């Protein structure tokens, strides 16, 4: 498989009056055609900023302070802003969390789907219109000719997110970056939208990078998973293996905090403590203050993301020692994840 996207050692910093917030700290990931990669972590873990950095959409004043982003084999960090925009937008498209704000409220949804074909791909209006209608049909919108003329506020959340997917597809990208695409939707609609994305992947070989805090969404969609904490990837590997046998205490703790419908729930488990302050330099592992398996080394020395076995990596000093982790995190209570 050819890598559509390769991010290496990406760093993003946000200058604030109180100091520099080091939000993304050396993140590396890659995505290939037809593959779905998940990026999971709690709020403030840097997952969305990573995605926006890749798409060159960082909010002011956040800036990329290090690392390389290679898209379709070309390093975009060396390009001019204009070249980069052109290259990125022809290779990738992005889907956002809130489909109401992600659509222009003053434009018919069909025209928004047809916009890139007309303005960028040089299609005639009538063929772009036909193409847009076809895309609407493809993402599962019934009666696409009629829906073409609707305004965003006239459609339901699930339908709007389908429109957003259709807009993303209109540019014929190899890779779709999705930032919490189902978080704002009901569970049943969530499943439908994820179904659309899965079909695109299967039928058209579109790659997918999915950012979410919802492990259930990831486990049903992505074959590869990156777990982020405090601006770093702390564990990386095939989704099934990570979920069944986490090798980073944070992944284990995250899995334990997912309620299991088959078990009697006495109380929802949460991870004690608070996420790290990214304004400060963290000498050791960012998770150490909350980690039940912490050892002295964790607070003084940063564990690197080191390979453990085939295709897996964990940034934990005790990754190979997981049998000896305290029992309350050693076994994922959830057992098996469900989509």
């Amino acid at each position, binding site marked *: 498989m050819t890598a559509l996207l390769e991010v290496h050692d990406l760093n993003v910093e946000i200058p604030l009056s109180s100091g520099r917030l080091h939000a993304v700290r050396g993140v590396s990931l890659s995505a290939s055609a037809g593959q779905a990669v998940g990026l999971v972590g709690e709020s403030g873990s840097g997952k969305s900023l990573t995605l926006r950095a890749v798409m060159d959409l960082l909010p002011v004043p956040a800036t990329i302070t290090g690392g390389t982003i290679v898209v379709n084999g070309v390093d975009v960090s060396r390009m001019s802003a204009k070249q980069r925009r052109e290259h990125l937008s022809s290779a990738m498209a992005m889907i956002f969390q809130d489909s109401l704000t992600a659509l222009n409220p003053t434009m018919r949804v069909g025209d928004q789907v047809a*916009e890139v074909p007309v303005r960028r791909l040089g299609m005639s209006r009538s063929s772009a219109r036909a193409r847009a209608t076809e895309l609407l049909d493809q993402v599962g919108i019934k009666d696409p000719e009629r829906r073409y003329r609707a305004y965003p506020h006239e459609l339901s959340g699930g339908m709007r997110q389908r429109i957003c997917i259709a807009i993303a597809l209109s540019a014929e990208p190899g890779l779709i970056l999705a930032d919490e695409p189902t978080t704002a939707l009901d569970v049943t609609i969530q499943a439908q939208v994820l179904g659309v994305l899965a079909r695109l992947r299967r039928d058209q070989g579109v790659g997918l990078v999915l950012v979410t805090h919802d492990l259930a969404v990831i486990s049903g969609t992505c074959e590869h998973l990156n777990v982020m904490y405090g601006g770093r990837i702390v564990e990386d590997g095939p989704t099934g293996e990570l979920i069944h046998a986490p090798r980073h205490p944070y992944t284990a703790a995250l899995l334990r905090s997912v309620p299991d419908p088959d078990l009697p729930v006495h109380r929802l488990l949460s991870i004690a403590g608070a996420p790290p302050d990214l304004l400060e330099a963290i000498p050791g592992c960012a998770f150490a203050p909350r980690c039940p398996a912490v050892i002295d080394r964790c607070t003084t020395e940063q564990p690197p993301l080191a390979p453990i076995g085939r295709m897996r990596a964990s940034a934990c000093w005790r990754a190979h020692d997981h049998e000896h982790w305290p029992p309350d995190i050693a076994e994922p209570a959830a057992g098996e994840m469900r989509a």
Partner: protein
Amino acid sequence: MTTAVGPVARGRGLAARRPLRMNATLAAGLALLGALVLAAVFAPLLTSWDPIEQDLSRSLQDPGNGHLLGTDQLGRDVFARLLYGARTDLRVGALAVLFPFLIGGALGLVAGWRGGWFDLVLMRVVDIVVAIPFFVLVIALVFALGSGTRSIYIAITLVGWVAYARIVRGEVLVAKEQEYALAARASGLPTYRILLRHLLPNVVLQAFVFSMSDIVLSILAIVTLGYLGLGVPQPTPDWGSMIQEGQAFIFTKWYLAAVPGLAVVITGLALALIADGFVHRSGRR
């Protein structure tokens, strides 16, 4: 004003968040303004008097005797001057807002989008213009340019654009971080397309609402300039000069100043109702 109404009305997005298309406030405002515009357009049908024809033998007549609102100190028909004055004041008021709206709006759009030195320089210029009192600057400019409607347009445009630049810039700063603007950027659309189709229709409402009250302000500016002898040249009928001439007779013929004054108030009311109606329709507060 047609360009201002265009995107809002056609785009409907802001306008259509709630199903209600028309509301009582908007309807009342439009009806009132419509009546004023009709009265101005069909002035020759509503009165047979010539607004500038003098008849010194029939000066300062009471209402009645063929003169609906009597005559002024030069024997001109007050009702005719009121109707023809609407032509002058509505036209000058609207045009004196149109140019600042277009120029200030365009500059604010670019400044908010681009940021950087352009934004910095533009906003400092805005600060300077804002620091000087509106009337002082307008009067000084009209004085320098010579009196007449053209000078009024230029002076009000030079001073008035700053408000639109500020409003639109502020709205763009918010809108450009909205996801639809990010999506438009991500999809590689040309900048002009993002600005004109994705941002402008979504930021124009605030500027449009402001322009409604700004029309009243520019009518007042014209009135003030007329008072200082820098306004619309005589004998063109205009409400400002009518008020100014009428005030000499305020104790005997109070309506000479009060009626054109009321016309200004009604115009202001109509425009304020339209502005409120649009805000209400958009569902914003």
